[in-house]
């Protein structure tokens, strides 16, 4: 067991290193930040000067090793824009993203579990068809488009909620709906198919042969088994959302990590891009790791080792 976890940790570190390296290379291909930072018409000598003060004139390998050396201790340099530590700039955007993630996951999980359960129970009936149509539509609809529609209707037409930005809890409603519906659609489809599969298991026949009430059979015997893949799915969605859903955050001008990264890429703010991607990769890898642990809690076959 502990050997397995050591291997997992090793794999995780390798993955983070890989991602950080790729981002380093890709950002260098974006173009020259020095040109962008200075006003148009600045003489070449001054651009050259800024470039060397940012350390961009050194060979790639040297820059890379320097970057890695500092990154291990969490130092990604100063933002080219605000001249504050890049990691600090990213971290202060984290709470907004975390709140949005939590609220949309909660909405998605509750809604998705309820509709998925209903669809599985209503198998072959009209209700299942209706629920599945909605779920498919929810999954196929781009979140940003749904977001724009929500803003148009609830913010512009009705004026119930702000169009964007962070201005008290009311601002949370629309982005939560947009992301929550997407999460719910995924959960509905997965939970339904997982329930249907579980309901055809031999042990469900045993439960029925024991004369148990349908309530007990669905809630205890089937749902418990059917929830295992759903939990994994939720955790992976959480990782995705925590990384900042760049497009959704942009639509709602949400002050989160995703929107920050989009802005940083626009202005070629290398340190912020690198710090942001490092953070997202780390969160993703950690949550994956947690999913493994969670599995062992849910499934006694894994917990107690077979």
């Amino acid at each position, binding site marked *: 067991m502990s050997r397995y976890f050591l291997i997992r940790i090793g794999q995780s570190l390798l993955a983070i290193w890989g991602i950080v390296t790729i981002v380093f290379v890709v950002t260098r291909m974006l173009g020259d930040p020095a040109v962008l930072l200075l006003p148009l018409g600045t003489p070449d000598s001054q651009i050259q000067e800024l470039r060397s003060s940012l350390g961009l004139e050194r060979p790639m390998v040297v820059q890379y090793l320097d970057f890695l050396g500092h990154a291990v201790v969490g130092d990604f340099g100063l933002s080219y824009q605000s001249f504050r530590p890049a990691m600090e700039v990213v971290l202060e955007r984290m709470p907004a993203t975390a709140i949005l993630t939590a609220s949309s996951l909660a909405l998605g999980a509750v809604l998705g579990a309820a509709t998925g359960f209903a669809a599985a129970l209503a198998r072959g009936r009209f209700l299942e068809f209706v629920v599945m149509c909605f779920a498919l539509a929810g999954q196929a609809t781009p979140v940003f488009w749904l977001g724009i529609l929500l803003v148009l209707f609830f913010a512009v037409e009705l004026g119930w909620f702000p169009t964007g930005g962070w201005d008290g809890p009311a601002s949370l409603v629309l982005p939560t709906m947009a992301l929550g519906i997407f999460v719910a659609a995924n959960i509905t489809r997965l939970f339904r198919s997982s329930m249907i599969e579980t309901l055809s298991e*031999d042990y469900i026949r045993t439960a029925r*042969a024991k004369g148990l009430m349908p309530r*007990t059979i669905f809630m*205890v015997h089937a749902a*418990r*088994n059917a929830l295992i893949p759903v939990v994994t799915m939720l955790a992976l969605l959480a990782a995705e959302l925590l990384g900042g859903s760049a497009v959704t955050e942009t639509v709602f001008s949400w002050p989160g990590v995703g929107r920050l990264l989009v802005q940083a890429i626009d202005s070629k703010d290398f340190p912020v891009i690198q710090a942001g991607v490092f953070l997202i990769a780390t969160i993703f890898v950690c949550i994956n790791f947690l999913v493994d642990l969670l599995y062992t809690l849910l499934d006694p*076959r894994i917990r107690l080792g077979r």
Partner: protein
Amino acid sequence: MAEPLFRIRNLKIRIQNGGETGYPVNDISYDLCENETLGIVGESGSGKSMHVLAMLGLLPRGLAVESGEIVFAGRDLLKMNAQELRNVRGKEIGIVFQDPMTSLNPVLTVGRQISEVLVRHKRLDWRSARARARELLELVGIPDAERRMRAFPFQFSGGMRQRVMIATALACEPRLLIADEATTALDVTIQAQVIDLIRSLKERFGMSVLWITHDIGVVAGFAETVQVMYAGQIMERGPVRSVFYNPASAYTWSLLKSLPRPDQVAGEPLYQIPGQPPNPFRLAKGDPFAERNPFATPRCFEERPALRPVGDVQGHEVAAWYDLKTRIRETGGAE
């Protein structure tokens, strides 16, 4: 003759597959007495398991009872509503299924899976249900019952899991225990232990047992009555000794002949029944076994035989137009 515990009359089960209709159970009638052990033998597709699932209202999708009645302790199970049937299942009729690996819920403890039957039917609280469940585990021969209550099914061996299934089926002291291929998935030695266990529990609880198997040898040492089924019909039934020593159906005869015998010469091939197992969608109009039967007479292909008494043995009946002994003499045996 004791009072019958249940009575099946003209039971017909229909399967719908696309546009085709088949009959996996095709008009069967029989009685089971109080305290009787009945062994039902047949190959896959003979309808032996199917009619039991119908009895409990557990037929899979696509299958339905077309006609007939199953009267259990005075009430027709087929006329009951879902709730009435649930009150019979697990309480008055206990069932043990074939595969103990998949028949127990993997994420619930064994203790919970036994106790919940008691909570459901005996209205016990969880505490007393657990205490009773522990006694049941001891009764079915699981050592260290207290600790094993908290274990999960995967922590048990196949034989032990089947004991758990038996404990569950017996929790409410049912009047009828159905064992549907209950020992098929087990090693031979474990098989013998489980059979012994059920035999001794039957004595103790005084219940009837319906033992369904494709292994005619298992029935021999255990049941009082044996019933041989083929293509959804009863081919022969009667007291075990009479049927085994004096088979009157060519199908029973073939099954017995294909068993390995201790006096068999090494390397000598086992008898093999020619032809294919029956297809419920293409039922013959005559005797369903006729086309695989070396002793079939022209009439066998034309008309379906009804059960008729064999000799003067009480209860021994066969569905056949021919007299097996005469036919064997006439044709000089099979092959």
